[in-house]
């Protein structure tokens, strides 16, 4: 991390250059108009100052002038809007080949899990030159994942998945901030983004400490542990090829049909609030709700597992529940304890 004083943030992602160019354009427009107004104010104040023998004030109206300063700002606004819109449209969809990493924000740390199971706290290690897609959740309040050097930011809102993608272009270490005020240690919820060359990254990823299992395996174990397969292979809807497919569901009033795509948020909702959207043809009473039983991390793992289940997959009980899986489930923190914790934690 460069600790020296600078007037311009480091550029370390492909997107940063585009944002900076737009910023420079905006700066130029701002400087021009600010200096224009300031210049006119000073010039008029001196030239037309009240003094003995100065000509009396004259009425002055000029429609053409008014049209100019209505239309010119309008045109400049159009340019700004289109440029800004292009930037956001270009960055709205992550590329297909993006490396997916899971992030959970909680008071007050960033919890990162790579697909092979490797975990990091307040650090995010990514390879250079490859698009990275973050799938993020919050365990408590709204956080915001912000990497200034990449010029990207995304709120992490509890109760739904949010996504962020970027393509690091320079190896190095960069700030990772929480940008949305999230309580006592908001300023302490910071971390590092480490961008490694591809080979170093592969080596780093493979050096997973013992005992960490991939998200899919953890998900499969949960699937088995909670007996999901019992229904979802027989009387319930099958998980095979489910992810990304279109589902016809009942929602709200029982005779209202609705089409949804089975994406992360749909799966999350169906796991935690199983009665929200019932697949057409199934009884709403069948599936229990898992709210309070599963952590956000568990939900991510389950979804990671469901994603891997192809159309021809066999679903069943072949995965024996590991004894230590239960230990992985932390109790949902109570409000009281969270606050007493926070008091104990002394910043720096």
């Amino acid at each position: 991390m460069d600790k020296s004083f600078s007037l311009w943030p480091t550029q370390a992602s492909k997107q940063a250059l585009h944002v900076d160019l737009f910023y420079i354009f905006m700066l130029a427009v701002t400087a021009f108009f600010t200096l224009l107004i300031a210049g006119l104010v000073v010039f008029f104040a001196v030239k037309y100052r009240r003094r003995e023998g100065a000509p009396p004030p004259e009425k002055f109206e000029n429609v053409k002038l008014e049209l100019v300063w209505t239309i010119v700002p309008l045109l400049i606004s159009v340019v700004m809007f289109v440029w800004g819109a292009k930037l956001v449209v270009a960055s709205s969809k992550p590329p297909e080949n993006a490396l997916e990493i899971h992030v959970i924000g909680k008071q007050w740390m960033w919890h990162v899990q790579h697909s092979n199971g490797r975990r990091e706290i307040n650090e995010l290690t990514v390879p250079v030159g490859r698009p990275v897609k973050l799938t993020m959740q919050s365990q408590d309040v709204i956080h915001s994942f912000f990497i200034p050097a990449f010029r990207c930011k995304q709120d992490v809102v509890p109760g739904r998945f949010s996504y962020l993608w970027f393509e690091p272009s320079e190896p190095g270490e960069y700030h990772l901030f929480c940008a949305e005020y999230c309580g006592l240690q908001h300023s302490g919820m910071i971390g590092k983004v480490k961008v490694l060359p591809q080979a170093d990254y592969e080596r780093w990823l493979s050096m997973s400490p013992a005992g960490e299992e991939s998200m899919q395996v953890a998900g499969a174990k949960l699937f088995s542990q909670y007996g999901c397969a019992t229904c979802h292979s027989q009387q319930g809807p099958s998980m095979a090829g489910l992810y990304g497919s279109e589902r016809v569901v009942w929602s709200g009033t029982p005779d209202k049909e609705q089409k949804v795509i089975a994406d992360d948020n749909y799966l999350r909702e169906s796991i935690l609030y199983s009665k929200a959207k019932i697949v057409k043809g199934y009884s709403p009473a069948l599936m229990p709700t898992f709210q309070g039983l599963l952590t956000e991390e568990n939900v991510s793992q389950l979804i990671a597992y469901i994603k891997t289940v192809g159309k021809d997959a066999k679903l069943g009980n072949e995965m024996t529940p590991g004894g230590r899986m239960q230990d992985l489930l932390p109790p949902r923190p109570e409000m009281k304890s969270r606050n007493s914790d926070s008091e104990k934690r002394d910043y720096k």
Partner: protein
Amino acid sequence: MTTIPVNPELTSPLPLGRKGPSYLDISFTVKSWLLTLDHKRIAILYLLSMTALFIVGGAFATMMRLELTTPQGDFVKAEAYNKLFTMHGVTMVFFFLIPSVPATLGNFLVPLMIGARDLAFPRINLASWYLFIIGAAFTLAAMFAGGVDTGWTFYTPYSSVYSNSQVALAVVGIFITGFSSVLTGLNFIVTVHKMRAPGMTWFRLPLFIWSNYAAALIMVLGTPVISITMVLVAVERLFGVGIFDPANGGDPVLFQHMFWFYSHPAVYIMVLPAFGVISELMAAFSRKPVFGYKVVAFASLAIALLSFVVWGHHLFTTGQSVYAALVFSVLSFLVGIPTAIKVFNWTFTMYKGSVSLETPMLFALGFLGIFTLGGLTGLFLAAVGLDIHLHDTYFVVAHFHYVMVGGVVLAFMGGLHYWWPKITGRMYNEFWGKMSAILIFFGFNLTFFPQFILGYLGMPRRYYAYASEFQVLNILSSAGASILASGYLLPGIYLAYSFVKGPKAGDNPWGAKGLEWQTSSPPPVENFKKMPIVTEDCYNYPLVDPHDLQPEDRLIDSTTKDDDKLKEQVKDKLS
């Protein structure tokens, strides 16, 4: 100081040669102040209470800037800092910026400027001050009972579930104050519609009236939304219903929609009346009509209407759909157009004018510079691609201080200095006035300009400890804040001195147009001795020598109780 005498017939509440009581000297008892129905006295009540709250909010800001001179949190701990910025924001936004210009200057001037004896509902006006005080008391109580640590935006679910501070008390205070705002707005709307003096047509209204009218529309239409939102937060905290808490099936982003649906228009409740002040100042100190009067008037209404459809630009990073973001982005740019028109029109008001740089004008010119930069940096945030990076950083902090402090506080100070001789009948020390304007201008820019750079560098807002490379700019900012603070303290001293010992100002010390300058300083209780009738457009400079005026040209005998007779008189005069 040129003092242009005004025809004594017009100004003196009593026959020439006898000094009649002004609204200030009619009675000196505490009761006569606390139960007054006179809009001018109520304006003074607001002025005093809001000055006190401004000092409270300013003290919090001072402590924050002290804390931020070093990267480590060594002056106060995290908890204290979080409470400081929350209370600074809550006090300044809800108890100073929103009511400042309308409740003080507006209350004092709206009836005077349109030639009315009072506002339409004097009792409601007094009630709105009491509601303001009760609301402020609740919120201050929350501060003294341990403070609030949610930020003035009260984002859920932090505020509704997680925060262990006095959120409920504070939001109840804001809820109550909301009524005060609605009532003031209602009073202004009815007054402007129904109480204008004969001949005061819509297009003869001073621009200060237009802009307060536009702001009043937003107050009446927008404030109930924030009130409901605040009640919902309190209900969720106290009873745990799942409106905003996702753990109970609520939606935390719903809060942000509701909050900004009011709080973005609220920005214009703050700046529109300030715009009105600037229009008056530019005209008076250039001795010229405001350039493009009608365009400026309509721009106020356009801003008021557009302000209701741009709230989504506060939610660009919440995961809002790209299409929604683009719509809010384009609408946000549209608000910039009427604002740009106003800035150019004010600037060109000086063109071929007779410009004098007295204290109020210095504030107005400072406003033009600062507000221009504040407005233009708003475009950075309206541009969705750029806002993603800038959102929730110090760039935003700098931007809204340029708009709020640069726009509202400078205009408020300018207006206070301009109408001070009318309000008190006395003149302040011009040297110290100018000194204050200059200190505030430079102190302000030194405080907030570095924050634009900090923001682009990536320093998030609401951090009490920060990465060490941000320190240089933070020190500059804190140094600026100390200059700014001294600039604010000065007027407190010389204005108080002027009130007691200042030289008599005369009725129209600036040689300005406008009905408020046609009555004595300070005005009599009934504002005008006789009902004025208006026979010319506002800002119809150059000023006619008042000695040439025939009193009967401008006055009718309003002492008669017979309405028909009155109407006839008016008709005669106007024809």
